[in-house]
């Protein structure tokens, strides 16, 4: 029995937001009477962290601590329209809408503070800790709490804001396919190392090394969640998954998680991830969206690593051991490429 190692690489990019645009999202931000903020959305948190990322964006824009912001989603009676959580649009589209709403709310908050401190709003700044102070004269400050109370009960102001973000819908030229599909793209390069058993066709992924450029990483832990989980799903797509194992024949479809194959906790491999940040000009604080693209480079990287290991090309997904074994037999055995 012989096992052969090989490495493969893939480089990819991915468009952020619904193709062609035309996918708006709205947000409402308001303060309660004691200076705590609520963001009202109809956007969905599927686990990707929508509630958490919009919360940080809102806090940053308002200039208040993140603890003072709570995101309420998704209720169609209170949350304004959002196209939905798909197409890597959440952070980019909803994040922008929340920024717009938070800016409007911040402007009122600063006016109210200026009235209390008897200065020009332009002379004020937030300290990010819950207070608003005069630039250059930090001793002249007032807490956001007192500003909210004053705005509500003395000045009769609503510290609130509305936001919408819309990338205008692009047409497509039927003849040439000329179009504006997206305003920004995330990028990735992934190197996979595999071991192939030339007698059974079994493939084990031993290691992944990747670099992802995702615009600004708004929360490194949420980014890590996406990239680690996404790479696992990519490995799963590459080697295991399909509800139609004999596609295009529809027979023998899996009915449960014993029959639908995915790598288990015993199949995961070490993964070194490096994050690059080239801010998107139109992203919230330069953010793009790592959610979808992180799975994509794994599939071809694994396929290319298998070629590097044993010299066969498997061009059909998923790359089951059976396909590898059939290809090895057709090729008359292992013909490893240059060891990498």
């Amino acid at each position, binding site marked *: 029995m012989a096992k052969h190692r090989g490495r493969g*690489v*893939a*480089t*990819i*990019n*991915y468009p952020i937001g619904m*193709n062609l645009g035309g996918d708006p999202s709205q947000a409402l931000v308001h303060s309660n009477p004691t200076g705590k903020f609520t963001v009202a*959305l*109809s956007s969905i948190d599927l*686990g990707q*962290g929508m509630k*958490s990322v919009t*919360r940080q964006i809102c806090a940053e824009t308002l200039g208040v*601590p993140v603890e003072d912001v*709570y*995101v309420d989603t998704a*209720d*169609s009676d209170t949350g304004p329209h959002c196209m*939905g959580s*798909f197409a890597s649009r959440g952070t980019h589209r909803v994040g922008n809408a929340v920024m717009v709403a938070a800016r409007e709310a911040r402007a009122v908050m600063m006016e109210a503070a200026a009235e209390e401190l008897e200065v020009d709003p332009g002379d004020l700044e937030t300290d*990010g800790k819950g207070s608003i102070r005069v630039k250059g004269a930090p001793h002249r400050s007032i807490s956001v709490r007192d500003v909210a109370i004053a705005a509500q009960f003395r000045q009769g102001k609503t510290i609130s804001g509305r936001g919408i973000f819309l990338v205008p819908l692009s*047409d*497509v030229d*039927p003849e*040439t*396919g000329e179009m504006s*599909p997206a305003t*920004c*793209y995330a990028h990735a*390069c992934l*190197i996979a190392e595999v071991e192939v058993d030339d007698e059974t066709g079994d493939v084990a992924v031993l290691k992944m090394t990747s*670099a992802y450029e995702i615009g600004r990483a708004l*929360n*490194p*832990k949420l980014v*890590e969640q996406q990239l680690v989980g996404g790479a696992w*799903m990519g490995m799963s797509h590459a080697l295991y998954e*399909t509800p*139609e194992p004999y*596609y*295009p024949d*529809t027979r023998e*479809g899996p*009915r449960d998680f014993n029959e*639908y194959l995915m790598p288990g906790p015993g199949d995961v491999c070490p993964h*070194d*991830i*490096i*994050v*690059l*940040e*080239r*801010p998107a000009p139109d992203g919230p604080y330069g953010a793009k969206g790592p959610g979808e693209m992180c799975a*994509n*480079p794994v*599939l071809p990287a694994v396929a*290319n690593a298998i070629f590097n290991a044993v010299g066969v*090309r498997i*061009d059909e997904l998923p790359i089951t051991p059976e396909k590898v074994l059939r290809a090895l037999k057709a090729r008359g055995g292992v013909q490893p*490429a240059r060891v990498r």
Partner: protein
Amino acid sequence: MLEFRKDIFADERDDNLHEIGQPTQRQDMLGHVTGTSPYYDDHRFSNLLHLKILRSPHAHARIRSIDDSAAARAPGVKRIIRAADVPVNLNTLLSLIQFGKDDEPSLASDVVRYKGEPILGIVATSERAALEAMALVRISYDQLPAVFDVEEALKPGAPSVNSTYPKNTFEYYNKYDHQKLRYGDVEAGFAQADVVFEERYQMSPIEHAPTETNGSIAVPDTNGRFIVYTSTQALFFSLDTSAKINAVPSNQLHFIGGTVGGGFGGKVDTLTEPLSILAARLTGAPVRYRLSRHEEMQFGSPRGGERIYIKDGIMRDGRIIARKVRAYFDSGAYTRLSSYAVVKCAAHIPGPYTIPNVSADVYCVFTNRTPATAMRGFGVTALDFALECQMDKGAVAIGMDPLEYRILNAYRDGDMKAHRREAKNCALIECAQVAAEKANWPLREEFRRMSSLKGGGAVRGGGTVDRTRAPAPAVPARAPASMPQRISYERPTPAAPPPYTAPPAPPPRSAPPPPAAPAGSTHGAPRFSSVFGTRRR
């Protein structure tokens, strides 16, 4: 296991922020670890009824007769829902953005077009009662010929799957049976290439397999409204679709969701809400419609299969000068979102590389299988697999390091893309360089010095491989002679490279977005949408 390279593109970032960039705990994490996060099914109602769906056992058949009388009398059964009970029993998801024609019934009436297509709904006091009643329904079918292969489906005489699109292809602009992409002169490029090769790639369907299956609970509210607790990934998308199918004003529906047990694209299709609402309207009681795991795996829409052919023309110095792509999306029996994925796929061709001559034809094809839908990487995942395997083969064909081959051809700021927009904010090369360094993948100095900035860095200077002019000629000027020839060719190469000819006339360049709409370009007929209102598209 995760590190940042803040030094790269640092001059493009203001890192002086308070909350952005902080590893703040998730707002929902405490709820998750205490089991208190409210998913749609974590709401309880007295007298909750349960909806189960009788599905077709055949991939393609005409329904001759349905006898549900025994089921209607079965213990616990409150109501049988038939196709005739559905107010608007034909819909297509993207009618909300005026894309495509209504082609899918909520409940099949005359013909079933895939194994698992819903035919009858049974509302009962328990899921068990509904399932037991289901066993009493008698349906007789006339089986019809079925087609399962995308290329078979396009052949003359193939069984027609979907009566709205009898030719088994989605209609683009009421004009074409597929989406086109044309840039430069791809045939001229092939004629001048040192190496030309075509390959076939196939991705089977993939199931989203969220740990929480699709479901919803529709509850009659006071004053004639309905509260709907749902696992949807798109609250208003599902609300508007449900309002349309039930023919009720959208403000009669109050959707609550937002905390969902995984989606990955599998909870966009509004699979359960229209019928749970209809069942609640017909019975006046709260109704839950929850997909079983078996239903989720076989009859909840998957990521569709895709077949992709790629033909490349490359020069021995590593430049790709022509790429032709033909791709078929297996949409299953109905459109759902595949028509849209096709356009996204066309936009993604030829990948993150600057290639002067590109041509693509992408088809949305109907077959007799479970309708496909969006999934993580929608329209791109299979194409990236095909493109990146193709890139590997190209590098081997000319004996070049596969990573250096990618860096050489990678798009730079200012390059023109095949869909005629200038590349901006690129970072592919930096990703390649950083990953290679981390993995000890050897890159030669000149490739370590290249960059995504305009022109790609000094190395590409002298207009050697300058692709900032757009559209590029069929063959750009030669690259530096120092191109690698490290390992032996694995594919036969032309005896002698054909002589370079003058570049063909470049296609007309159009201004950056938004270009004027091409005359007569419309996606299907205008229709009502409470999302966008009515307008031409």
